[in-house]
């Protein structure tokens, strides 16, 4: 076993060696511009791009023509939401989304609010799931788009995508899903789930950084987008810019591998995740799992270790790469807004740790992580005045804290 151990696979993943191998020739051997129509270099590059497009489409049951390549999921989210909002402005000005979305969705919606659009942020329940009745009630004559992520990046909670899609299509409303964490991990089918737009990122699924895709439905309904980047008219005019050929080859290969291995890989990841959870919960008291366990990615575990601040825990397990919802680890110095939306108090949000298992972890690593986490939490609780008070029976909620 090699240290440090990488268990932060919601942040990014290691490029699969098979993906890397597929990409390499496209840097210095087949290096043409896919838009060059009149020589061999261009044709070969274009061929590689179209193969990648097909591989992405196959994974989500789409047609190749419905895949638009982008620089990543942030761009895909921006293109989907702004593209629909600007294109369908005359039809309506209302968008529905959820407060646990990625910032690429939330901040895009905030910008549109400044432009005069109305945005409804549906509440989530304690388990992180939206209530479909709330969604139904939020839809109006003015609603043009619903954007709900497939699986959450912090807590791994999977939203009822097929039900949301059906509801939107019944009402003639477009449905976008940021499926970055879900694609390649759980089955996603744009036909069966009535998805109109889907954001995909390569580097969350063992592909390279800097490349992603947006699925854009071509029939029933045919979705049109106003581009956010103007230029040479690439990608059916929706996304100008020279195509990232090696990146697209890598994304395609990553999708192909995921399609083949998803079922067995999920079972393995779920077994490790459950082993991790059971190992921790059986040895420590006052550990709380954040978000639904039932509707959850197989590789995600997000837990709060009460009375132990997250960053100090990360510091103690510095040979393991994981993330925390603690304010100290965030750029904004606020604890996780996702956990807040679930109703997790700031006190517990500060103590949360996200484990993201991946294809390249091993059972030995899982066992090592259990041991290190348990040992470090115990040590830090000995240091924690809150743990001491709680053990003395003090109700921490009733203490008048001096801030």
């Amino acid at each position, binding site marked *: 076993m090699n240290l440090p151990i990488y268990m932060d696979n919601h942040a990014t993943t290691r490029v699969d060696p098979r993906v890397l191998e597929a990409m390499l020739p496209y840097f210095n051997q087949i290096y043409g511009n896919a838009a060059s129509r009149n020589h061999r270099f261009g044709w070969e590059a274009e061929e590689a791009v179209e193969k990648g497009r097909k591989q992405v489409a196959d994974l989500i049951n789409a047609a190749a023509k419905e895949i638009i390549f982008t620089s990543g999921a942030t761009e895909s989210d921006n293109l989907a939401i702004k593209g629909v909002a600007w294109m369908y402005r005359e039809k309506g000005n209302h968008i529905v989304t959820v407060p646990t979305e990625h910032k690429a969705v939330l901040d895009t919606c905030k910008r549109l609010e400044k432009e005069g659009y109305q945005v409804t942020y549906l509440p989530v329940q304690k388990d992180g799931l939206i209530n479909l009745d709330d969604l139904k009630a939020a839809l109006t004559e003015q609603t043009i788009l619903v954007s709900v992520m497939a699986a959450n990046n912090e807590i791994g909670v999977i939203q009822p995508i097929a039900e949301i899609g059906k509801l939107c299509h019944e009402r003639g409303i477009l449905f976008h899903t940021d499926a970055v964490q879900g694609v390649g991990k759980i089955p996603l089918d744009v036909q069966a789930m009535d998805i109109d737009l889907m954001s995909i990122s390569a580097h969350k699924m063992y592909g390279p950084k800097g490349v992603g895709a947006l699925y854009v439905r071509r029939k029933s309904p045919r979705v049109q987008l106003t581009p956010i980047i103007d230029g040479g008219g690439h990608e059916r005019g929706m996304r100008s810019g020279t195509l990232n050929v090696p990146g697209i080859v890598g994304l395609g290969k990553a999708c192909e591998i995921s399609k083949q291995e998803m079922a067995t890989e999920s079972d393995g990841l779920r077994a490790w995740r459950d082993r991790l959870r059971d190992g921790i919960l059986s040895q420590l008291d006052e550990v709380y799992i954040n978000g639904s366990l039932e509707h959850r990615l197989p590789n995600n575990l997000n837990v709060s270790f009460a009375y132990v601040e997250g960053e*100090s825990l990360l510091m103690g397990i510095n040979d393991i790469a994981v993330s925390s919802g603690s304010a*100290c680890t965030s750029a904004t110095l606020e604890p996780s807004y996702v956990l807040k939306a679930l109703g997790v108090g700031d006190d517990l949000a*500060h103590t949360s740790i996200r484990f993201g298992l991946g294809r390249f972890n091993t059972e030995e690593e899982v066992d090592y992580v259990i041991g290190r986490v348990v040992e470090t939490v115990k040590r830090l609780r000995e240091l*924690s*005045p809150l743990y001491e008070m709680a053990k003395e029976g003090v109700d921490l909620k009733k203490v008048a804290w*001096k801030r």
Partner: protein
Amino acid sequence: MGYSDKVVDHYANPRNVGSLSKESPDVGTGMVGAPECGDVMKLQIKVNPETDVIEDAKFKTFGCGSAIASSSLATEWVKGRTVEEALKIRNSDIVNELSLPPVKIHCSVLAEDAIKAAIEDWKSKGDSRNHQRGGPLFQIGPQKPSVFPAPRGGETK
């Protein structure tokens, strides 16, 4: 983000972890911060009634590595100082000693606050200290035990 060697050292080997009896008349307890803010420090001092020297100090901290290091350092620094000397410790001294980055300055502020709160608590016990030792039941002016030393041979803590 990298931590300075001193922060890492205090985090890995915190000095003076533990608790002193809150009820003891010679012990002052300072608890600052809030769980919702991600930092709570408890700092306790035990003061020699004759000399006003802080003979022992203990802490427990819920917070990031820099918060733990700041409070650990604070206990090291107050030990052996008189109460008046301890009051002169500034958060900037802690920042410099631990090379804290700007985002961690609040940890040092909290440590300074914890020292002050502990001393305040100890001072507020002046009455009971004097009472228990058979000293005067009232004092003139601010409660400064150093100005009104308790008679010897009185109550032990």
